[in-house]
């Protein structure tokens, strides 16, 4: 087993005194059951009852968050879309499509963040507000990491363009600049605003030199003494060589131009052009990429990756991707300055700069409480063909493992399980098996939910699961006395055995009450009658009653006979069938022919001979007597009928 990456957290179970009693537990799909046992840790016997509750411990509470639900639902749509277009992705457009997918995921995260932010602000209870705010920061960190992964792994920006992307990345995640800008510009005298120089510095740090120039021109207008210096600095800003997206200049050209520009800035600094204005001087130093000057602005930079990007912008704008990690490590060290240690987020970003995807994913898995992020990111990177399929201990590759974990987490939820189904579908090795196990365990509270589950199983040819689910539902229906539902479930599952059970119930009801319940069902069985012999018998028996009711006596008679001779009647029912023959035999007209009467007699003797001998005295004896009487009456009636039939057939009119 691998060593632990971090100390496991301790969760206290309320009501259980873990010092005195032991607890037992059992794992479930996404949860754990814990309860107190009666074993004592010490030898003293405690007769005091302990905690009577069973606790369900759930690690993943995000699944139940109202706002994160949208994240799960939307990302499911994006995931399925990505799997579906996988076959069509070829050539040049592939990268663009994958970047688009990545941007979709990110926009979903941002939308969630926005909404949670609104809720955090509007929350009346400060504790809840804090909870939401921390969720917002987690989401923000997730988006930060994803964005960086997009730039480095999916977009795979080459040197030159890389820096532009990184600049965008940083600008996206520091949002106070825009509000500050609006603030300062909106004031009457922008250059006299308190935060004016702060704003200009931030703009320069972020590489937004055009806007910085605009601000400088305002300062130049306001104080003519520094107009000259502002103009020079503004010129420097304007002439800084930047790789623009559509530009065709090569990297070496850019390097050369940049070198020249750098030297010019250096010269200005040497000449003490900006000596009289400390603000302008520090701006110039920043633009030269002076580390000390940058570190002075730690507060404005706020984090080491901003420092990294600014530093790269002003000292190595043509940085190559493979060199990034050197600068990243040194930036982190310089920024933290030995005062604090790197946080998990910092480690993740460093791992990304080092292009160590596995490390990124591993660290994210540990740091985040939910598999959502790593599952989707890994899947996307897998589509970019970046993950070698190295097998984990459990036989499937990393992408599949993460997707399985995520989907299993979804199945613990009473309605998000439907999303989980699609995730299992796209796990080639263990997906189907996992789905088979999970889908049988979804609690079926309504028929509509059951129908959805069945539809999913049928679409994937999981006949075993269909049968077992239908059997559960049919059994429930029988218990609730809904025999029609039970029958329709057994028809759906083509479960002959259960259909037999239901028919037996109907027949039992008939024996007890003397009439059929649920005639609407039995009368209209249709071709489903063929599902089981017992069901066919039920249908035909009801038909017999109908014939009798409609006075179609010959039809009734031949049907009755065929019921008895065809062996589909259950043994327990024979006596009833025979008794049913009585009224037909007593009719004025001769209904049964001689042939049929012989058949009936044979059946009767067959039945009488095979009747079980009851050994217990008492009630059984009385029943036996009653039955014997009935059989005697039957024999008499049969004999009489035989006589009449023979006469009728023998005489001229009968032939």
């Amino acid at each position, binding site marked *: 087993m691998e060593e632990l990456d971090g100390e496991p957290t301790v969760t206290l179970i309320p009501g259980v005194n873990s010092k005195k009693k032991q607890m037992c537990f059992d794992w479930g799909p996404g949860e754990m059951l814990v309860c107190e046992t009666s074993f004592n840790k010490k030898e003293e016997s405690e007769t005091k009852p302990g905690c009577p509750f069973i606790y369900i411990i759930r690690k993943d509470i995000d699944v139940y968050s109202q706002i994160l639900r949208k994240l799960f639902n939307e990302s499911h749509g994006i995931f399925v879309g990505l799997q579906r277009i996988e076959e069509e992705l070829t050539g040049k457009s592939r990268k663009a499509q994958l970047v688009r997918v990545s941007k979709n995921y990110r926009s979903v995260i941002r939308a969630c963040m926005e909404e949670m932010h609104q809720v955090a602000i509007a929350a009346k209870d400060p504790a809840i507000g804090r909870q939401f705010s921390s969720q917002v920061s987690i989401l923000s960190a997730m988006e930060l990491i994803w964005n960086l992964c997009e730039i480095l792994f999916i977009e795979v920006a080459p040197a030159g363009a890389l820096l532009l992307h990184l600049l965008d990345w940083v600008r996206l995640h520091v949002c106070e600049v825009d509000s500050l800008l609006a603030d300062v510009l909106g004031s009457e005298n922008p250059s006299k605003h308190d935060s004016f120089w702060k704003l200009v510095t931030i703009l320069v740090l972020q590489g937004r030199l055009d806007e910085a120039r605009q601000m400088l021109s305002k300062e130049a207008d306001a104080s003519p003494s520094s107009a000259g210096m502002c103009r020079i600095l503004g010129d420097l800003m304007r002439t800084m060589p930047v790789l623009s997206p559509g530009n065709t200049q090569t990297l070496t050209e850019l390097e050369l131009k940049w070198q020249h520009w750098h030297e010019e800035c250096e010269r200005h600094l040497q000449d003490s052009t900006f000596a009289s204005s400390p603000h302008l001087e520090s701006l110039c130093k920043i633009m030269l990429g002076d580390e000390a000057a940058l570190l002075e602005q730690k507060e404005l930079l706020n984090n080491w990756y901003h420092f990294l990007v600014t530093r790269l912008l002003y000292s190595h704008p043509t940085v190559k991707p493979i060199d990034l990690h050197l600068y990243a490590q040194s930036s982190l060290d310089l920024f933290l300055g030995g005062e604090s240690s790197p946080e998990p987020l910092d480690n993740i970003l460093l791992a990304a700069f080092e292009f160590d995807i596995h490390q990124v994913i591993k660290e994210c898995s540990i740091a985040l409480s939910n598999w959502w992020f790593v599952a989707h990111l890994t899947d996307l990177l897998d589509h970019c063909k970046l993950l070698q399929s190295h097998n984990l201990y459990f036989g499937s590759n990393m992408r599949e493992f993460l997707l399985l974990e995520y989907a299993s987490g979804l199945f613990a939820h009473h309605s998000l399980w439907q999303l989980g189904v699609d995730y299992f579908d796209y796990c080639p090795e263990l997906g189907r098996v996992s789905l088979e196990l999970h889908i049988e365990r979804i609690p079926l509270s309504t028929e*509509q939910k059951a129908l959805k589950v069945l539809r999913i199983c049928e679409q994937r040819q999981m006949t075993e699961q269909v049968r077992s689910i239908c059997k559960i539902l049919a059994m429930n229906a029988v218990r609730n006395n809904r025999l029609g539902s039970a029958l329709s479930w057994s028809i759906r599952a083509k479960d002959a055995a259960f259909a037999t059970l239901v028919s037996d119930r109907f027949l039992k009801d008939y024996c007890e009450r003397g009439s059929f319940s649920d005639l609407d069902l039995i009368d209209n069985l249709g071709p489903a009658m063929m599902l089981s012999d017992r069901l066919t018998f039920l249908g035909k028996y009801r038909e017999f009653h109908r014939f009798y009711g409609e006075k179609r006596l010959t039809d009734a008679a031949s049907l009755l006979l065929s019921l008895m001779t065809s062996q589909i009647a259950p043994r327990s029912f024979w006596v009833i069938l025979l008794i049913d023959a009585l009224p037909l035999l007593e009719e004025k007209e001769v209904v049964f022919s001689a042939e049929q009467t012989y058949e009936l007699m044979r059946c009767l003797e067959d039945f009488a001979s095979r009747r079980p001998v009851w050994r217990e005295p008492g009630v059984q004896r009385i029943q036996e007597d009653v039955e014997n009487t009935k059989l005697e009456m039957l024999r008499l009636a049969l004999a009489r009928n035989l006589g009449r039939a023979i006469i009728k057939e023998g005489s001229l009119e009968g032939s």
Partner: protein
Amino acid sequence: MDLQFFDQERIVAASSTGCVTVFLHHPNNQTLSVSQQWTAAHYHTGPGSPSCGSAPCTGVVCSNPEIVTVGEDGRINLFRADHKEAVRTIDNADSSTLHAVTFLRTPEILTVNSIGQLKIWDFRKQGNEPSQILSLTGDRVPLHCVDRHPNQQHVVATGGQDGMLSIWDVRQGTMPVSLLKAHEAEMWEVHFHPSNPDHLFTCSEDGSLWHWDASTDVPEKSSLFNQGGRNSTFLSHSISNQAGVHQSLISSWLSTDPAKDRIEITSLLPSRTLSVNSLDVLGPCLVCGTDSEAIYVTRQLFS
């Protein structure tokens, strides 16, 4: 499991806990409050069911002041607003689950069940027997939804588990007038447009929502929607002829001469989603909800 507006302010909701609730909508602060509740409207009683076993209430239909609900327990309840108890209850109306209900005329309702039967019940009669039963011969496919034509009270559309749309004329025999092969999976809801009854909407487990246009006034039909959906024309199968019915009263749904009338079908949702569970339509607006917890709204149905 089902919702319907009772009047301008009140909404009746049927729940899977067997409870029927009337909510009152307060437009000034956009909230809902419970105005009335019948908690044990549907329940199971059987030798094996627990004494408090509740049964999901699957369908509700309102016609002020009456509310009719049906459930998995095969029971039909007739409630009146502001009456504490049910005015009339038909126990064991059906041995299987009743999936949906609609009013035919005010004292008559029509229910569909999971053995593929339509039953008409008349509340004026005593007793627990339906006044008429209609069904298909052949496979007993469960029927999940039903809706009555807004103007012609004898025309009813039902949707089944196999995605088949059937149009029935309840005056004429026990067979449907037409069977149209529609969706690939259960059809959850079917609705006639209340003011343009030549238009029908169906939604299904297969994730699609279809608009059926049977209007015959335009000789060359242009498609009404271009929301990126599929657009196809279907010929309807006719399985019984309509001889002897006045032409002027014939609804375009009942006249099923394949050569003359073609129904234009358009899919309204732009891409395949998870199951579309429910829809409603009024005027130019259509609302539907899917299993991916998304609600789609269009306000320009006939633009």
